[in-house]
C-alpha cells in the first residue's frame, strides 16, 4: 500500500525567510510525487511534480521540491516566503507502474507566513 506522511500540521515562517514543508512517502517501485496548494474555500491546485530525472523540481509561484530517494522524501521549498503563500499544502504519491494509479494524499500542512 502507498502512503504519505506530512509530519507538521502547521508551519510558521516570517515573510522573506526560506520555507520548507516536509513530506515522506511509501510506495512500491518508483514514485510519482506531487504537491498541491489549497487557498481558503477553493479547490486544490497543482504546484509541481517529480516523475524522473533531476531531483530538484521547479514549479509554480517560485516553489521547488527536492526528491530524495534514500530518505523517501519530497520536501517543498521556497527561498523567500510571501504572505500570499499562506495556504494548505498537500503532498501526494502514486506508483509509476504496477500498483494503484490512484494518488494517495497526505493530511496537509497549513503554511502561515507572518508579515
Amino acid at each position, binding site marked *: 500500500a502507498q502512503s504519505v506522511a506530512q509530519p507538521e500540521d502547521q508551519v510558521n515562517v516570517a515573510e522573506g525567510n526560506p520555507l520548507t514543508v516536509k513530506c515522506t512517502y511509501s510506495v512500491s517501485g518508483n514514485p510519482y510525487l506531487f504537491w*498541491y496548494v489549497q487557498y481558503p474555500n477553493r479547490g486544490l*491546485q497543482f504546484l509541481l511534480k517529480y516523475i524522473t530525472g533531476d531531483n530538484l523540481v521547479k514549479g509554480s509561484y517560485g516553489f521547488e521540491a527536492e526528491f530524495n530517494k534514500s530518505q523517501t522524501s519530497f520536501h517543498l521549498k521556497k527561498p523567500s516566503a510571501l504572505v500570499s503563500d499562506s495556504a494548505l499544502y498537500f503532498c501526494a504519491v502514486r506508483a509509476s507502474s504496477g500498483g494503484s494509479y490512484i494518488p494517495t494524499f497526505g*493530511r496537509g500542512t497549513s503554511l502561515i507566513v507572518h508579515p
Partner: protein
Amino acid sequence: NAGVTQTPKFRILKIGQSMTLQCTQDMNHNYMYWYRQDPGMGLKLIYYSVGAGITDKGEVPNGYNVSRSTTEDFPLRLELAAPSQTSVYFCASSESMGTTGELFFGEGSRLTVL
C-alpha cells in the same frame, strides 16, 4: 476551458434526505474522482471512475453512489444523509492511466447535514 465544475457550492440537508452533487469536466479526461475533505484529515477517496460506464469504490464509499454515463459527468449521490456526511466534497479529473498527469479539482461543494 471551464475545467472541473461542481454544483451546488453549498447545501444544507436534513437527516434522511437525499441529494446529488453534480460534477462535469470539459478536458476529455478519462479518470474522475470524488473526495471528501474533513478538517485535519486530508482527502479521502470516495469513488473513482476510469471511463464512461466504469466506477469503483475508494476508501470511504459507504453512504454514497456514483454513475458515469458520459466522459464529462460524474455525479455523486447521497441516498440517506447522515450528520457524518457533513464535509466538503471535491470532484477531480486526470488523464488516462499510465500518464503522469496531475489531478484537476473543482471548487468544492460544502454539505451540512442537520
